[in-house]
C-alpha cells in the first residue's frame, strides 16, 4: 500500500464494536467528499466491519496498516470516494 495523506485520525483503541464504526460514520458525515479517514482500532471485528461498512456505504477501503506509533491494533484507511 502506497502512503496516503490522512485528513482525519480517529483513535478508537480499547473500544469494541460498534464504537469504532459509529465514530467512523460520524466522521464521514462531518467530512467533505474525498477526505481520507484513518481509524486506529484494536477490535478484532474492525478488520471485517470497516471494509464491510465501506462496501455498504459505497466508499473506498484503501487498506490496513500498522499504527504509526507502533502501538496495538491497525490503522484502517478509508477514502470518502465512490469505490471503483
Amino acid at each position: 500500500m502506497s502512503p496516503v495523506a490522512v485528513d482525519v485520525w480517529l483513535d478508537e483503541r480499547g473500544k469494541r464494536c460498534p464504537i469504532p464504526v459509529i465514530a467512523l460514520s460520524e466522521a464521514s458525515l462531518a467530512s467533505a467528499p474525498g477526505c481520507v479517514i484513518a481509524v486506529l482500532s484494536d477490535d478484532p471485528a474492525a478488520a471485517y466491519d470497516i471494509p464491510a461498512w465501506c462496501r455498504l456505504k459505497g466508499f473506498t477501503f484503501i487498506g490496513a496498516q500498522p499504527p504509526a506509533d507502533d502501538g496495538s491494533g491497525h490503522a484502517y484507511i478509508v477514502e470518502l470516494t465512490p469505490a471503483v
Partner: protein
Amino acid sequence: MLEAGRSAGAITQAEAWADPTRLHHLGRKAGILLDAARSSVAASLSSIADEPIAAEDVHFTPSTAAAARAAVHGHRGRLVVGRVETSMLLDIADQHPGSEFIDVDEFGRVNAEAFAAAHIGSSGVLGCLQAANAEVGTTQPVSLVADRTAPSNRAGLLVDAGQLIGHGPLPRGWTALFASARDWAGPAGVAMLVVRRGVRWQAPDDGRRGWIDGFPNIPAAVGCAAALEFVLPRADVEAERARGFIDRIREAATGIPDVEVLGDPDERLPHILTFSVLYTSGEAIVTEFDRRGFAVASGSACVAESQRPSHVLAAMGAYTGGNVRVSLPFGCTEATIDAFIRELPLVVAHVRGDT
C-alpha cells in the same frame, strides 16, 4: 424438543440400558431396540434421499463431532473442505494433513467449480461439504459437486446435513452424511452417521453394532428416530409456512435503515434468516430481544466466547457487528411472527438509542 421423541425415549429408558453387544437377554433386548431405531431412521431418510438407505448404513453417535471423526477415520488422503463448514469440522480438517479449504462468495456459497477441481484432482481426496450453512441459511452446491466428481473419486463426499433434515430434501450424490437429532427437535446427545454401501470406509473399532463412540445411548437413538418419523411427513408443509414467515421477516429487516440481510435470498434453508444491524452490538440486540420474549442468536464477536466474529460472516465479507440469526422452531405460529415483526424496529431503535 418434540413430545414424540421425549416419550419414545422415556419408554425405552426402562427397557434398554444393557450393552447391545452382550448375549444375555437384556443385551439382546437393547440390541433389538437399537436395530429398530436404525431401521426407522433408514426408512425416514430414504423418503428424502435419491437412493434408498439400509438400516446397516445408519450409525448413531453421541455428537456430530463423533460422527465426523468416524467418517474421516482411517482416511489417509487429503480433505477438501468448504471455508464455512462448522468450527468442529474445520478443526478436524486443520489437524488432517494436506487439507484444502475452498472459499465462498458473498452469500457464503462455495465455488462449485473450485471445489470439484480440488476434489477430483486425485482419487484419494475426501470432500467435506455442508448441505446448507446453518448460520446464514445458504444452500451449498453438493449435488453439482457430486455430479462432477462422483465418477472418478473413490474416497467420496461427506455431507454435513446440519439444519437441512426436516426442512428439505437431501442433495444427491453424497457417500456419507451426518446430522444431529437436535436439527429435527429430537433429543440432545445423539447424532448419526450414514455411510453408503460400497464406499471405502473403515469403521472405528469401538463401533458397537450401530453406535459409534462410547456406550450406546439407546433411549436417545430411539427418541431421535421417533422425532424424525414425526417431523418428515410434515416437513413440506412446515417448510412452506416457514418460507413465508422468513420472507416477511426479511422484508421487515430490509425496511430498516442500515441493515444488511445476509445469505442467498432464494437458494436457502426455509427457516433461518440472518442480518446485521449497523451501529449496534450483537450482545445488546440479543439481550433486548430476550427481554421482549424472543430467543435469537448472533455471530458477532461480542457474543462469542472467543471474542472474534463468526468465521462464516468473516469468510463472506459480511458486516459482523449487530448480527442477528433467527431460526424458526417447528410449529411456529403466525402470531409469533406478527409480534416479532412488530418488535424488530423497536428493538433496533432501542439499542441504537433512538428512543
